[in-house]
């Protein structure tokens, strides 16, 4: 019975009318048929919104409130500073939750609509990447509190200096889906220049573990590296999830719907509301990626005249919709997305996995792609080693539009795709080459999109769309390749370090003992050492960072940033310059000459002239890489160090042969057996830790005899 009523109401057909029918039974039935408001519907179906259990209710409440805070801060360019408090109440099964932000605040007249009315919001109609979308979230929390505890929520908001902080008690009239506000007052104790605070008392339970409020905030902190969260749990423990960057993410922009992602009903509605007089104008102005040429092709495919869109019949709209699929239309713009970025994901992961001291972290941001007319972008991270359990299944951290997904992991596109990758070839255990891999690793998958295809309204899992899975898989594979390389390097090192024990400890002992037994002098071992080692050993860099307090460094402006357009096609390597020492050293490529040449170069002569520069405060990183020739003959080769794209080269000793945006290259002159060489270079404009795990490469030497660097596969 309820099902019938729901169907009727949710049809969108307005009030059910009791038609004059011949069947008296329908008349009888009609007496029981009445409107159910959206609010009433959700009241009875709370699991749809993520309130199925008291534990989950707490996380959902925190999630909805923080989502709103983060979105609001981002839209206003504010660095979010969010306080989350969970307090015990007189009743064991009720908790009081307060979430307070430093966002722009909400004007008084909108407080009721936002907190006391379902399906009201600014983002529902906008096509852009944002956390909340439907305008259900926070008002559902208010409703849930009201239902389970009878308490009204308390909302306080201040929209700026000179405006009072307004405090109001908020309820929700479920019949009318309207806010009910009481006891409006000024909050004298409010101190922040602007911000919003919501307090709700709900039926909830606090607990630890993976699906806990704490883990939710920890995960949220990873994908929101610009935000600070302060969490006060009911036992009084305070945790600060500190931000790792001071840069607010680029504001996401709104785009028009793309024809491929538009449904027939939407087309009809858009046509009805159209301001344009002609279909061509309607198509080019109301949709993205449709130019006049494409618009004409669509009309011709749909066999439509260039009529006024308001006159479009249902049948004609249907032909138009079909034509969308047949005519070749450009992909939607993707610059509306705001990925976190490889560097920031990495730093977020690093900070939040400090307790397990991982040995390796890698991140991948895939180029934007499109599913069903909606742009999306995938980011992937892998944390490996440390004290992570080696015998257990890897843990997957799933995110959508910077929001952690804690439930329904099994059916999520991210999980399904992780299981579809053959992890064995990258160094993780996996029975049969599919299913969940085992090993000391955490995987991160973030999908950002103007429309994330969630499996349900609770937004707990991403539906397995082919295009999204493909991108996730590519991202995972790329990150996995990094991991594989790291593990291979590590294995090679372990093997060689065994040889180190051999040549540095056992052999000298053997020489000493045999000499003592025979009463002879201890023999020299250097040649044998090289015979046994037979490698050029390159050590991991030792890096020191110095914060350039109050100073700025010249940073080359990147093409991508200069033009706020599509990803820059060709990254031109600017600022290439030959080391001045190189020319002088020509003809006598010995180590001495090399070192001499290096000394002649002034150590800190500033950045090389670059066409476009910008001022940026940053760290100065001084990195030293030591290499030893443990081979029988003299060895010369080219050595490459990859530097972060945003960094600027300051100096190096010896002088590199080539300085490019992405790498430095040295010509290492012939090193004699057991000879050591230390390279030092300084780059500015990097984040702290930014050159800790730089990739190094060699060229012109058999890679099998090199430990600590990969073979160079050509430049950019």
């Amino acid at each position, binding site marked *: 019975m309820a099902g019938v009523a729901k169907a009727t109401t949710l049809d969108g057909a307005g009030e059910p009318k009791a038609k004059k029918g011949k069947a008296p039974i329908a008349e009888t039935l009609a007496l029981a048929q009445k409107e159910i408001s959206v609010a009433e519907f959700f009241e009875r179906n709370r699991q749809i919104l993520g309130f199925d259990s008291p534990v989950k209710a707490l996380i959902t409440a925190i999630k909805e409130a923080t989502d709103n805070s983060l979105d609001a801060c981002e839209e206003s360019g504010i660095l979010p500073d969010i306080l989350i408090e969970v307090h015990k109440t007189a009743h064991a099964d009720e908790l009081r939750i307060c979430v307070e932000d430093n966002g722009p605040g909400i004007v008084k007249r909108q407080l009721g609509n936002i907190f006391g009315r379902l399906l009201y919001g600014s983002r529902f109609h906008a096509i852009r990447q944002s956390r909340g979308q439907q305008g259900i979230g926070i008002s559902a929390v208010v409703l849930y509190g009201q239902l389970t505890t009878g308490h009204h929520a308390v909302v306080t908001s201040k929209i700026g200096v000179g405006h009072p902080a307004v405090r109001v008690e908020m309820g929700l009239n479920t019949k009318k889906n309207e806010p009910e506000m009481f006891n409006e007052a000024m909050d004298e104790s409010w101190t922040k220049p602007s911000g919003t605070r919501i307090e709700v008392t709900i039926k909830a339970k606090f607990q630890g573990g993976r699906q806990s409020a704490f883990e939710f905030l920890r995960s949220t902190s990873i994908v929101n590296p610009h935000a600070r969260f302060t969490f006060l749990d009911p036992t009084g423990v305070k945790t600060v999830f500190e931000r790792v960057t001071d840069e607010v993410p680029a504001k996401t922009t709104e785009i028009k719907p793309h024809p491929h992602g538009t449904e027939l009903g939407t087309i009809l509605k858009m046509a009805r509301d159209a301001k344009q007089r002609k279909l061509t104008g309607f198509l080019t102005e109301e949709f993205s990626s449709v130019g006049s040429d494409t618009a004409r092709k669509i009309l011709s495919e749909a066999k439509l005249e260039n009529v006024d869109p308001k006159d479009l019949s249902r049948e004609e709209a249907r032909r138009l919709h079909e034509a969308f699929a047949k005519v070749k239309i450009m992909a939607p713009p993707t610059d509306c997305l705001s990925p976190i970025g490889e560097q920031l994901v990495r730093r977020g992961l690093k900070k939040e996995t400090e307790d397990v001291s991982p040995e390796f972290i890698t991140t991948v941001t895939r180029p934007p792609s499109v599913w069903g007319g909606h742009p999306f972008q995938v980011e992937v991270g892998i944390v490996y080693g440390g004290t992570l359990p080696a015998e257990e299944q890897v843990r997957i951290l799933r995110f959508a539009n910077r929001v952690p997904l804690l439930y329904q992991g099994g059916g999520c596109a991210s999980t399904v795709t992780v299981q579809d990758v053959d992890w064995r070839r990258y160094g993780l255990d996996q029975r049969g080459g599919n299913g969940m891999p085992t090993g000391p690793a955490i995987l991160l998958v973030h999908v950002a999109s103007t429309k994330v295809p969630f499996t349900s309204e609770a937004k707990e899992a991403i539906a397995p769309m082919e295009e999204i899975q493909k991108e996730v898989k590519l991202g995972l594979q790329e990150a996995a390749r990094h991991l594989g390389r790291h593990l291979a390097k590590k294995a090679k090192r372990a093997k060689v370090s065994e040889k180190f024990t051999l040549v540095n400890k*056992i052999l000298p002992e*053997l020489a000493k*003992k*045999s000499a003592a*037994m*025979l009463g002879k002098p201890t023999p020299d071992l250097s040649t044998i050492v090289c015979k046994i080692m037979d490698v050029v050993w390159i050590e991991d860099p030792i890096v020191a960072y110095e914060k350039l307090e109050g100073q700025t460094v010249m940073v080359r402006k990147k093409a991508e940033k200069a033009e706020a357009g599509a990803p820059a096609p060709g990254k031109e390597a600017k600022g290439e310059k030959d080391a001045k020492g190189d020319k002088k050293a020509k003809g006598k490529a010995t180590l001495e000459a090399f070192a001499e040449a290096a000394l002649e170069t002034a150590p800190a002569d500033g950045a090389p002239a670059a066409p476009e520069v910008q001022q940026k405060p940053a760290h100065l990183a001084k990195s030293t890489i030591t290499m030893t020739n443990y081979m029988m003959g003299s060895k010369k080769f080219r050595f490459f160090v990859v530097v972060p794209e945003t960094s600027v080269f300051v100096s190096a000793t010896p002088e590199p042969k080539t300085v490019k945006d992405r790498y430095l290259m040295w010509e290492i002159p012939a090193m004699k057996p057991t000879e050591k060489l230390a390279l030092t270079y300084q780059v500015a404009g990097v984040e702290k830790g930014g050159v800790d795990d730089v990739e190094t490469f060699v060229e012109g030497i058999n890679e099998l005899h090199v430990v600590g660097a990969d073979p160079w596969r050509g430049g950019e």
Partner: protein
Amino acid sequence: MAAAPKTKRSADKAEREQVALKSLQAIATQVYTHLSKAVIPEVQLPSRNKGNIVFDEKHRVWKYGAEMTTRSAKSVDGAYMLLRTMYLSDFIKEMIDQNKSSTLREMYYISEGWDLAKFHSQDESDLLGEDLEVMTTSMREDFKLRPEENGAAIVGDLKVVETIRNNQKRTLHCQDDVGETGYHIPYNVEPDRLAFKDVKADFVVAIETGGMFARLVENEFDTKNNCALVHLKGQPARCTRRLIKRLNEEHDLPVVVFTDGDPWSFRIFASVAYGAIKTAHISEYLATPTAQFMGITPSDIVNYDLPTDKLSEQDVDALKAELVDPRFDDDWWRGEINLQLEMNKKSEQQALAKYGLNFVTDTYLPEKLTEMGILK
């Protein structure tokens, strides 16, 4: 370094020790010379595995063949082995100088003070002791290393004249002067330490288990059949095998071996008669080529309808390994091994008790020994 071992048993003890010292010195010299010439040091020795044993026609025993293994300092394991060899040689030199000896176990504990060269288990140190024998052709007794007493014993109508402390000689009759556990075989049974006198026994029965040895002693099998009973105590120690060989060679006593009916017991017989793989470098000194296997044979299990156990996986693997072991490469053994694999069963010596405590001495042994032509 790996020349065929010459028998140096005739030489006197001091002389043998000096030869051993020289051989050890030669290894040290080789390592030192390699190091000073920038050659990665290495030593070679015969491969000590089943694939490298060949039948020595002259001594009619199985010995190491021509295949050599190289222990090179190129690998960490090889380098450790060489370093330990140096330390062990040095230790042996010290013992010879001071006229001391140590047990293999003591040697293992001594290595605690060798820093990097210390052994991680006694198996490692025992193995290196054997390697040194193989490399130098001296015997571990010459290195002043001796095994633990293993408690193997002999009962029978013969006398032993042993050198006791203070170089006194003492003569014992192996029936009248010993308890029911018999005369305990010492670790050194060389003629200068142990001589036989008045050997009246007609043959030797070597017995695997203590239980069966005690049964034959209690049933007075030795006196009733005029034979010597030797308790092998599982895989027999070198001195037990050496003693059996001396009785066989010096006093012409036929030897029969009486064990359980399983693949491991076949190997016990092989080490008595053919030579063990681990000690193949001294097989001609330890093995008794004319020793015969009496039982329990797989055929006995069938013929006497003995109580059985099922073969374990390891048993089956061991039998299969024996099928490709050159020492078992004859029709009789192939037939018996295949029979056992086929019936998938094994029996212990003491399973004969199924027919009463006297069955083994009254029926089984007389039948088998008559069949083998030892009893008439």
